[in-house]
């Protein structure tokens, strides 16, 4: 295995997870990850010693944002299925008592900037500095997106589904 493989491959499960959290459609998400990896392999030398993890997430993040823009600009052949697809195939109870589909719907309803901040920190467990680097924003901006996003997410999940969310301790 060359050095690229050693550094890139362990990060692939996380990249796939990030793409799926954005797109919900499994094979579409994997296509974008594939694109990201091909770009990474092609431009490996142009990385200039940047840390591999934030660098890869940044490539993928930009692909996801571009994809979203293209969809918005062009309109759809058929309306995009708003219902949650089979993409993640996880039983709802795994989401710690919170209604899984509700969680996903709420996530989708967040502005992309806030969703990205939450996913990179909460799910991908990137440091605040790395997450800010991926999104190419100052740390303070990341923090306020994170904070506003989390408040908003709580409001969205709360709406209509309160009893399921509030677990009795």
């Amino acid at each position: 295995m060359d050095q690229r493989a050693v550094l890139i491959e362990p990060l692939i499960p996380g990249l796939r997870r990030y793409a799926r959290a954005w797109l919900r459609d499994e094979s579409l998400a994997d296509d974008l990850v594939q694109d990201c990896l091909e770009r990474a392999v092609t431009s490996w030398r142009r990385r200039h010693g940047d840390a591999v993890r934030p660098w890869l997430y940044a490539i993928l993040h930009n692909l996801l944002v571009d994809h979203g823009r293209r969809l918005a600009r062009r309109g759809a052949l058929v309306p995009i299925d708003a219902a949650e697809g089979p993409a993640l195939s996880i039983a709802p109870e795994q989401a710690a008592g919170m209604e899984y589909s509700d969680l996903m719907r709420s996530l989708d309803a967040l502005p992309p900037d806030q969703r990205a901040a939450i996913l990179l920190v909460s799910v991908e467990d990137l440091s605040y500095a790395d997450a800010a680097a991926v999104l190419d924003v100052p740390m303070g901006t990341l923090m306020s997106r994170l904070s506003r996003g989390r408040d908003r997410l709580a409001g969205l999940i709360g709406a209509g589904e309160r009893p399921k969310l509030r677990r009795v301790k």
Partner: protein
Amino acid sequence: MTAPIGEDDLMAWVDGRLPPERGLLIDTYLAENPDLASRLRLQKEQRLALSAAFLAVTSAPIPSAMRVDTIAARRRAGPQWWHAAAAALLLAVGFGGGWGLRTTTLPPQAGIGALAQEATYNYRVYASDFQRSAEIGPDDRRQLISWASRRIGSRVAIPDLASAGYRFAGGRLVATPHGPAVMFLYEGPSSTRLAVLSRPMEIDKAAKMTPTMEGNINRITWADRGIGYSVVAPRSPAELQPLADTIQRQALTA
């Protein structure tokens, strides 16, 4: 002197990343602000629920296409299929354009007229070589849909023409002067080959069905909701019309 409590402290508390020296300070602050404390506890709960929700994806084996070795080997392998496809289209455009000039009429440059022309070029290139015409075969519909959707930037659906006797034989992406288009290929009665070309439209975002012909090839072309469709086959317009109707109905109701 202690730094005042900030948003970053509160987020670090939610994430369990608070440096030890801030811990006591924040805990005391939260004890004095029960509303904020309960809001943050809820956020912490949601953070855990989110990472739990995506756990299954994390443990899934990665596709072999994602291996760095595979990617590096493919890059070494040289020209990719789309180079060939683009070359084929350029040849077709060159030939078609030249042929058109013979009668001093240029093919339409935009709108559904251009789409019909693109569909015809591609039909001539690909439908005549049916064994190799489909980049992705009928058994890999899912792959075709996701690939084409991504390249075109719109969700595509494969029209089902089985009830009219046309069997889906696969599809591919093709290059057009207006960006990538998806072409679906079908085989009908007495081995008739039929193609449906579809791409986003810059002009003619909605246009009614228009039959045209070129040589022995008939086309019915239209656009709905910013997406253009052209059905092409060496069949009479009367035979193509019900197929076009079916495709339009499926696209609008899907």
